[in-house]
Every structure is written in C-alpha cells, then in structure tokens.
C-alpha cells in the first residue's frame, strides 16, 4: 500500500549548517508518526519541507506517491509551531476564513465544539490563553477535514493540565482515522500518542520504530531510583551500575531481586525506593549520550 507520506533522502543546507542531513522515512495511512529530538535537532525543518513550506536542498517528499501539489494543499491540515493570525478577528471569524479557503471543509460550529473553543468563540484571537491558542491552531488545521495532520510541537509552553487535555483531543482526532505527523521534544507525549517514532539528532534519524519495540530492543532492565543521601558518598562501594542524577541515584538492573539484596547487604535504606521501567527519555540519552557527555 502506498504510504500517505514518504520522505526520501531529504537534505536542508543553510549557510554553515546542515539542518537536515539525509532523512528518509514513510508514514502509513491512519498512523501517528512522532518525530522526536532535542531543540535544534532538525525536526521543524524536516516537517516544514514535508509541508511544502520550505523547499528542500535535495531529496523529495511524496504525498500518496506524488510530489506535493494542489491536492496536498487541499488535503493536508497544518499546525505550525508559531503562527501569527490576522489581527482583529474572533476565533469564529478566523475559522471561517480558513475553512472557506478549502473545497472540502468542516462546519465552523463543529470545529469549535471539537476543539473545546465554545467559551471563546467570539473573542479576539489575540486575547486567548496559551492552551486556547493551541486549540484554535489545531481547529484551523482541521478546517479542511484533512486526511493528514501535521502537528509541530503542539504542546510546547502549555501547563501540564492543558497538555493532557490536548493529548486527549489528539487521540480523539486520531480515532477518526487521520494520519498524523507529530513533532515533540516531550518523550512522554510521543509515547502516549505515537504508533511509530523516529528520533532525530543533529539532522539525522538515529532510531525508528514503535516506541515499545525500541525500548525492548535497547533495554532489558528497569531503573531503581533512590535519594542520593541514602547511598554511601562513594558510589563505587556498591557493585551495581549507579548513576547520580541531581539529588537522585539511578541504578539499572536486569535482576531486581539480586540488586535489592546487594543494596540491603550494604545497609542502604529502601524506604524511598522507586522502581520504574525504561522510557523514551532513557532511550534518547542512551542513543545520543548527550547528558552523559556533559
């Protein structure tokens, strides 16, 4: 089956910087694909080339097997990371403007309900809170009832509650069968929403696959977390792979019983012990070694 979106050997060269350095992947119909990486990894540049907003230096982007064209612009919904809207328009008028630009469009009232904008529908769009603005930008992206939806760091700058509300919203949109491309630097967000993720660093993709498979491939252990003061000052006194992180120590182990026995033998109190599985944050650190290097 032809993928909805396919990227082949995409390169973007800016003066002195190769922002995207030969990226290839494809996104199947109805799936949510997450592009992850730290700030400056090249996610936004990659997405903008896929949206047809930034021309690539080389490589190609295909929509349903064809180069991006009029059909793509009519069927794609795009939420930019930062977008200025026209001043002096209300939420409802802004949505009406965008929906009238498309041949196929969703009812404005329906968009307002879907994106929970009822309370602010007649408010000037410059007077929205961060969460309301992100929901309006999402509603604009949905105005043409899109087949494929681009979300570029949609929850950056939102408080935790607004972020969780936004995730629920994306989940319900995904349930309608749309194909979604999401970029984020929140690993938790990717884990919660994406079927497939690709981790980018310095313009390249360094890992790609379903989140659980990637975690299984790279880790066969869990993490024991203990407060730093509960362990001896010299961590090498304990024969376990321990890593100090701020006021905590993380010990990774494939055999929890054995590790606990060693800790008890060394008189370490286990009152504040937490055991957690490996997450995408760990995977990113594992793959880039970035924090270990600093």
């Amino acid at each position, binding site marked *: 089956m032809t993928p909805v979106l396919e990227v082949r050997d995409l390169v973007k060269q800016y003066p002195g910087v190769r922002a995207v350095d030969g990226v290839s992947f494809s996104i199947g119909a109805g799936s949510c694909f997450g592009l992850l990486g730290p700030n400056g990894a090249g996610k936004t540049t990659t997405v903008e080339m896929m949206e047809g907003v930034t021309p690539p230096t080389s490589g190609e982007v295909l929509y349903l097997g064809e180069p991006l064209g009029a059909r793509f612009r009519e069927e794609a919904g795009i939420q930019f990371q930062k977008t200025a809207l026209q001043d002096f328009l209300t939420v409802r008028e802004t949505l009406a*403007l965008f929906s009238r630009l498309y041949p196929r469009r969703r009812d404005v009232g329906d968009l307002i309900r879907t994106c929970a904008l009822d309370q602010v529908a007649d408010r000037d769009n410059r007077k929205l809170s961060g969460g309301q603005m992100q929901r309006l930008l999402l509603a604009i992206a949905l105005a043409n009832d899109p087949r494929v939806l681009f979300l570029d760091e949609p929850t950056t700058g939102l408080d935790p509650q607004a972020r969780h509300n936004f995730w629920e919203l994306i989940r319900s949109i995904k349930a309608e069968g749309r194909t979604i491309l999401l970029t984020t630097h929140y690993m938790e967000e990717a884990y919660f929403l994406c079927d497939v993720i690709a981790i980018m660093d310095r313009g390249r993709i360094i890992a790609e696959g379903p989140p659980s498979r990637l975690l299984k491939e790279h880790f066969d252990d869990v993490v024991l977390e203990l407060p730093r003061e509960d362990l001896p000052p010299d961590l090498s006194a304990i024969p376990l792979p321990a890593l100090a992180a701020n006021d905590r120590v993380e010990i990774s182990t494939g055999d929890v019983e054995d590790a606990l026995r060693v800790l008890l033998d060394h008189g370490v109190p286990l009152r504040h012990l937490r055991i957690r599985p490996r997450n995408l944050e760990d995977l990113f650190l594992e793959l880039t070694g970035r924090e270990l290097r600093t």
Partner: protein
Amino acid sequence: MNLRRLAAVWHARNLEFLRDRSTLIFNFLFPLALVVAFALIFGGQPRPVFKVDVVAPTGSALDPALHPFLDTRYVDFVQVEPGALEAAIRKVERHQVDLLLDLRAAPRYWINEDSPKGYLVEKLLLESAAGRARRQPVTGAAVGYVDWLLPGILGMNMMFSCLFGVGYVVVRYRKSGFLRRLSATPVTALEFGAAQILSRLLLTVGVTSMLYAALAFFVPFRNEGSVLLLLLVAVAGALAMIAFGFMMAARFASEELASGAINLASWPMMLLSGVWFSLEGAPSWLQAAARALPLTQMLEAARAVMLDGAGLRDVLPNLGWLATMALAFLGIAAAGFRWRVD
C-alpha cells in the same frame, strides 16, 4: 483564480481594517484636515485682489460718490489719514500697497513702476475715471486655481492611501508569519493580492467620495462632467496605484525597507504627476516620463472630466492605460510574491 477564496481573504481584511480603530481614524482624519484647510483657504467670500490706500477729504467716508473707482469690487480700499501720506507712499515703494489715491483736491495717485499689480490696478482706475469704454458683461466663471488644484489634492491623498495602505499590511503579514500560514492553504498569490487590492479599493474610493462630497459642500468648485465617470476614473486610478503598492510589497520583509521604497516611488508622483502645478513647458522627455505614472493618468482624466466636461470616449485612453498598469503590476507581484521570510 478561485473567487470564493478571494472573497474569504477580502472579507477578513475588511473586518480587520474596520476594527483597527486607530488606523481607521487616521484614514479619515487626514482627508478631514484637507477639507478644513481647503475651506479656510478657498471657501467663504472671494478675497480682494488689490490693495489701495485712499486719502479722502476731511469728514468724508470712502463712498463711490467721491470717486467711481471706489465702487470697484475685489479691491481692498483702506482709508488713510492725510497726515500719514508720507508713510503710505513708502508702503507703495515697498509693494505693500498696490496704489495710493489722494482725493482731497484734483485726484492724484502714486504707483510703483516695478509693481505688476500696480500696473493692473492703475488700468482699473483710469478706466473707471475716464468712463469712455463701455462695459461688455460676459458670463462664465474662470478656472480658478482651486478648481485645478482640487483633483490634484484628492489624487495625492488617494495615492498615499493606495501605496502605503496595501504595502504596509502585506509586509506586516509576511513578517508576522501569517503569509507563511496562508501559503500552506490552497490560496494563490494572485487570489491573495486581488483580495488585498479590492479591499483597499473599497476603502480608498469610499473615503475619496466622502471627501468629494464634503468639499462640494464647503468649497464650491467646478465639475463640468459626469460624477459617475469621475468615479470610474477614481476606481481605475486607485486600482493601478494599489497594484503598484502591492508590487512594491511583493518581496520585502521589513516595514522600514518597504516604507523607504514606497516613499521613493511616491515622491516622483508628488512632483511630476501635476498635483500642484502643470508640467506644460517642462522638457518633453520629462513630460513623457510623467505620463507613465498612474497618478498622472488619473489626474489628467479627472481634470478633463471636471474642468472640460470630457466624456467616456475622451478619457478612454487614460482608463485603458490605468487598467493595463493595474494588471501588469498585479501579474509581476504575483509572479515574484514571497510568502515567508527565509
């Protein structure tokens, strides 16, 4: 060209403009100041053309019975005391007064040999005193400077509204990223441009029409032709000038740069398009260059309609040239249009 998309962008731009109070007020305030200035300068009673000091016999007022010249209109007669005769002569020497008339005995008068107005007012005096030539009254008002200047002032006001109104907005949209967002929709540069141009056209022609009506009320001026044809001329001229402004803004991403470029384009029009004075007598190459400017074409047509009562057929060449310019500017702008700042 998709008309529904064009209408959507047009409507949104109109809403934005109407709700942007400060800009809206400024768009009406400047023309209003023009009306007030015009009314003060050219309105009310016609002003005297000549100034004449008169020394009358003791006890008499300045009465036509004293001398028929005193009945002349548009001459400002000022009575001077006999003792001030010397001072009055000095005023004549300095061109501050055009003529000094002493009616105490046999009338005497002083004029400055070098003063053109003195020369003319002397003729009036001699004509009234001799009474030989019989007066032949004719009808028809002369074309005053106000009649000639008014289309120029209205045109200049339109030019600024057209060039800056659309130019600034487009550059601001580009800078803020709104254009980048639109570029991800099916809207084309031609549709976007046409929507901006039509929105500004509505405003400019609306304001100018109101200004025209207000001026007609306060400052009587001449319009020999059809008001509808004048409206058509205004629409064609505005279209060409807005399209020109849109072309200037097709690529810039900074308001400062756009402002400089538009200023650079507006000054030649201010000076060469015949807003303030006619270019008759200027070198022919300069006249030819001036005729290539949209404002020149619009003012030429407007003056032909207002001063000579020209009809559609007479101004058709101007209208055709303006329409061609509008289409060419829009085409060039759409072809080179930049949606984003790289």
